[in-house]
């Protein structure tokens, strides 16, 4: 069953999150458990400790539905209505302008480097 495979793979990815949490306990760096988990899963794939097929479907689902996992936090914005009413418009403006600058600068720099390297290589 498709759903069963998906659930098992997502649980499998969870195991790496827990392993990441264990590493975090030992390593005194302010790096989140999920980042350690990402590295561990990568190493496990790289050294063929686990096969790509064992986690690929679950990982694809998690990444495809990423927006769903943001929804409760987005609803949680209502708890900050006092901020939103005082400086909300300004903050939204700030984020909008800064986002335009970041998208623009990153895209232009990447495009420039790619052109400099020569378009024939694409």
């Amino acid at each position: 069953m498709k759903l069963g495979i998906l659930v098992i793979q997502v649980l499998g990815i969870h195991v790496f999150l827990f392993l990441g949490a264990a590493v975090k306990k030992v390593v005194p760096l302010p790096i989140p458990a999920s980042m350690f988990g990402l590295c561990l899963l990568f190493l496990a794939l790289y050294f063929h400790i686990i096969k790509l097929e064992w986690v690929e479907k679950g990982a694809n689902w998690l990444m495809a539905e990423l927006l769903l996992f943001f929804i409760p936090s987005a609803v949680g914005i209502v708890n900050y209505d006092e901020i939103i009413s005082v400086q909300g418009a300004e903050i939204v403006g700030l984020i909008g302008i800064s986002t335009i600058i970041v998208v623009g600068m990153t895209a232009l720099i990447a495009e420039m480097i790619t052109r400099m390297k020569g378009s024939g290589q694409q």
Partner: protein
Amino acid sequence: MRMVLFTVITYLVYLFVKKVYGKTNLPFFHPLLLTPLLLIALISFGHVSANKYLDATKWLTHMLGPATVAFAVPIYKHLPIIKKYFGTIMISITSGTLVAILSTFGLSKLIHLNVAFITSILPRSITTPIAIEVSKDIGGLPALTTVFVILTGIMGGVIGPSVLKWLSIRTPIAKGLALGMAAHGAGTNKAMEYGEQEATFSSLAMIFAAWITFIWGVVLIPPLMHFHSFF
């Protein structure tokens, strides 16, 4: 069971919005914008407190953890691409994170945000779990950071494609890197609409941005906040 009920409602509203967005492609229907608005309307209509809703659906937020771990898969699959474009990715994302932090800092000064807000908003362009970690580290408030990360995601998904069009950006690498850099998972989600290559570069940008912002959190942001205290 409240958890099941609220999760099912959230999922159904999300699916509905995703379908509408897919058909119309109007920025206002972006799932990260319209879904929360509909849900807020629903819970206030049903006289449910926001905290009850949040408590019942917090396992969905928890899924951001395994979702972050899952990004090991595209890194592994696209290792040859990373090797080939390592320089381009590093230069673009190092500049991107720098521009993100500095422009956010400058604009925060301009609107006279207080210190707790500035430290909470600086890591806004990276993925939530890591943004929260950076925020804690530099003295911000994680809950507030989450709000700013979400707003950034909405903005990136809505404005990002228009910026790429205005600047007539053509290469998939530039489109992908820019969206993943500026708007983390939401940007990557948008990049998936462009194509496989864009999505790949976008997820790579998101991961690199998280790591590099981490480093900025240690070497750049503390002196910046120190400088801030002189005003």
